[in-house]
């Protein structure tokens, strides 16, 4: 196997021992620790697993075997950071690998990739901030006893904003369109933050 790192639609930032990768296609950020970063950067489609292990071992100064490389590749593949997907371990491999993984962890050579989905604007603001992103369009909302919230605020606690694989799961936003709202007491809230218009006209003096 000669894995190749994906390069398109990624923003890459290097920190001291880590690499931050932002996936523009999925709006996900990944933090690769030193070994994962080293392996990813050397995935050029020409280097074998054994050679990747040698490179990592040389640069890190700790024993790195092919299993460590395989684990790193699986993690990178799962995050879509490789051109060609890498299969996960079989059940037998999983069972026999444990000892090796423990040794890697003890040697601080365990590849780690931490990921998060970039928040939509609404997910990062206070519960009273019930504004959805600019791309969202509210299409309907249910109202009971005078108050509706699309964006979903319940008793002062924002329950929306949890995004899974690009889909907001409560408050129901799919592909940028809010399709339903939830009801609390007293207030109807269904906001959008529209993208600024680019008009260049000058208003008459007020």
């Amino acid at each position, binding site marked *: 196997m000669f894995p190749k790192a994906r390069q398109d639609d990624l923003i890459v930032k290097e920190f001291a021992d880590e690499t931050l990768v932002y996936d523009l296609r999925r709006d996900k950020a990944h933090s690769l620790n030193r070994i994962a970063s080293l392996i990813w950067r050397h995935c050029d489609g020409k280097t074998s697993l054994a050679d990747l292990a040698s490179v990592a071992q040389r640069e890190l100064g700790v024993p790195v075997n092919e299993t460590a490389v395989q684990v790193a590749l699986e993690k990178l593949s799962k995050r879509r950071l490789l051109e060609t997907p890498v299969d996960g371990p079989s059940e037998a491999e999983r069972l026999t690998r444990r000892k090796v993984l423990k040794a890697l962890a003890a040697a601080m050579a365990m590849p780690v990739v*931490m990921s998060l989905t970039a928040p939509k604007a609404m997910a990062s603001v206070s519960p009273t901030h019930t504004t959805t992103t600019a791309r969202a369009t*509210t299409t309907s909302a249910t109202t009971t006893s005078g108050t509706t919230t699309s964006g979903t605020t319940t008793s002062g606690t924002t329950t929306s904003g949890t995004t899974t694989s690009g889909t907001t799961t409560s408050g129901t936003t799919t592909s940028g369109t809010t399709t339903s709202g939830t009801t609390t007491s007293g207030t109807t809230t269904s906001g959008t933050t529209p993208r600024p218009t*680019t008009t260049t006209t000058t208003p008459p003096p007020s």
Partner: protein
Amino acid sequence: MLCFTAYDLTIALEVRPAGLIDEARQYLPPGWTPEHRRAPSHSVLVVRDDRATGPSRARVTAGGEVIVETDSWPEALRSLESHLQIYVAEWGRQRIFVHAGVVGYRGQAILLPGRSYAGKSTLVAALLKAGADYLSDEYAVLDPTGQVHPYPRRLSMRADDGGKVLRMTAEDFCSRACLGPLPVGLVAVTRYVPGRTRLTPTSRGWTAMALIKNTIPIRHRPAASLDVIHRALSKAYCLRGRRGDAAHAAELLMSVVSERTRQDPALAA
């Protein structure tokens, strides 16, 4: 109709009845200035319908969409404020807004990223009482070089019963507003857990992820956001963990900044 500019965005605000405009002005984004030349890129309408019988009804509409409809005028004003805040934070072109409390100490900014109810304002207040200067309890406003600018809205402190929100100034805590900008000296990613404060040093990569999680325009300006976060963290010391009593945590954070400044006086810009 009031046309104003905040963070390079021009917004038109109309309030009906017009006599309520002075009250609404208090809820505009910090640093707004009246605008007479540029066309607004966004418009907001606030209407209060005072009925002969029954409670009055208020509605806030932005760009044709209803933001809030409520029986409570103060709530309508808070929604107006929230809407304008998030609008400038998301679409302001020259700054990157990160949801965080920020204070200044020894020429450096201490950033406390986190969402609401994470206890940011409480920790900011404790830092102010301990001698830090105030920049923001809502957003770290980062310029392209990674320096933090003040977002000087009044602190929102929840009353002890958790209900009413009190608006405080830095002076209420015997502190003062920082005029900034400041380089980022310390980032502390904490969560409130009753008991002893336990913070440990963490990497800039991990901290960058915590900032991304709280960066408002990350989705539509990812490259600019990441550039700014990268620069902001270039000399920052980073801590993570749980914080208990705010006064104790504030003391700890300030002692870390003092110690780092003692070791490297160049950090105090």
